[in-house]
């Protein structure tokens, strides 16, 4: 199956990626080739096959719920592009 530029724009929106028109065209062409290749999965009979999400037979891993030290706020916020006090700065979400 091939992807149209409209589909690429929609997926880019879902993925929160800004693409210009030339990038949309190139992405549509390249992704279409990959998706056509991936479509060969349709030839495999998978009736009744349990999907394998994870290679290990681990299901749930519990640990003791004990308080432990966490990273200092300054260390964590040191990489923030816009630190405001002890918070991350973002543009207003609500008007």
């Amino acid at each position, binding site marked *: 199956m091939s*992807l149209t530029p409209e*589909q*690429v724009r929609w*997926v*880019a*929106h*879902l*993925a*929160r*990626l*800004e*693409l210009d028109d030339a990038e949309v065209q190139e*992405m549509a062409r*390249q*992704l279409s*080739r*990959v*998706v056509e*290749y*991936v479509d*060969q*999965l*349709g030839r*495999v009979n*998978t009736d009744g*096959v*349990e*999907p*394998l*999400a*994870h*290679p*290990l037979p*681990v299901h749930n*891993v519990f*640990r003791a719920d004990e308080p432990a030290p966490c*990273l*200092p706020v300054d*260390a*964590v916020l*040191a*990489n*923030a*592009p*816009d630190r405001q006090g002890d918070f*991350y700065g*973002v*543009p*207003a*979400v609500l008007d």
Partner: protein
Amino acid sequence: MTDLSAAELLALLSRGETTAEAVTAAYLDAIRRREPLVRAFLSVDEAGALEQARSLDARRKKGEPLGPLAGVPVAVKDNLCTQGQRTTCASRILANFVPPYDAHVVTRLRQADAVLIGKTNLDEFAMGSSTENSAFQVTRNPWDRERIPGGSSGGSAAAVAAGLVPLALGSDTGGSVRQPAGLCGVVGLKPTYGRVSRWGLIAFGSSLDQVGTLSRDVADAALLLEVIAGHDPRDSTSVDQPVPAYRQTLEQPVAPLTVGVAREHFGEGLDPEVERAVREAIRVLQGLGATVREVSLPHSPFAVAAYYVVATAEASSNLARYDGVHYGRRAKDYDGLIDLYQKSRGEGFGKEVQRRVMLGTYALSSGYKDAYYLKAMQVRRLIKDDFDRAFAGCDVIAGPTSPTAAFRVGERSADPLAMYLSDVYTIGCNLAGLCGVSVPCGFTKAGLPVGLQLLAPPFAEDKLLRVARMHERATDWHRRRPAL
């Protein structure tokens, strides 16, 4: 000194015939001379490495107990967090990221008294097979600088091959340790999923990612695996199983040994020179008493397709965290929060990362999830079942690591699918959660290394390494060095 293995360096150090400072200085000198030709490193911590080496020498003088890598320089792929040292993932979006903590494997290296010498180049976010997707530089194959070193751990593989460091860590999601090891003529080990903690390894495909080792020989791979393997409560998928003393059993040949050979690993697209070298390696094992039998992996032709759905789906979710808010690069001009996300990610991610985030988002999107993601997970089960059946009749599966030797810089950049197909033989191991290793097994007429891939069932690293060592002892491919 820069021709020695880590084990040989450790012997010299423990006999007092050299010092950690002298070893580190020798490698730093090699980096000064040869790194401009190879460009394997994104950062070299010259002062820190020398200081660490001197303090080790002082501790040795006082008779203090030292760790198993005391005084050995080690390079670390730049997708493993190093506290206080830039960790970029070779991405513009993390160009200035300084982690507030060490990856588990980095902590283990420090506890083992390794000398951390620098961070190596990679395909951005470990997505690629040539290291050309780095946002910062193209690493060259030390055997032919017109060619790529493989990827995504191309910096680590090239650094070991060029004698810039005796040991390096990489990560392997679909072959990213084994493929560059094969193309650079060094040993690359991908441990079983769960054998090594992924804590602090910047996530790409979380059900596939595993930290691996690059070294000149199999004994050094065993040594480094002993240091990094084992349970870590911070990674709930790291398995709580004792770590065998791999080095102790390494010289014991596996007997009887049955080597499985899959017809599917010798199919269309395999370079005849690569095939000849790999067939010869299998004959070497046969000459050592191994029984060779054909095994069948009927779903392996679908491995690349299944992988590029599963890995990209996981990547699209993992990379959602790069939002220009919490850390990493933020775009300068934006109009509102969504625009901030879109511009920061559009500017910050390179083309291959964008393609994979798009593919994964598409495969998970409403209306396509069943046809792609669910289907790929079902095919993944069939691929794992194939391996389970095959390993019921053999100890290891032997075949080529890659279908061709190193290709030219730029040769596959315009064709993502051609690039993806260079992982055709390595991907199954990750989908099924096996362990695997690539060892040098010959050269093409043009002088490019060829890798032999050996695969073994989960947690059979001891046997895997013993078989690799049997081959290594009978050959001398691992002793060849590129002329730089």
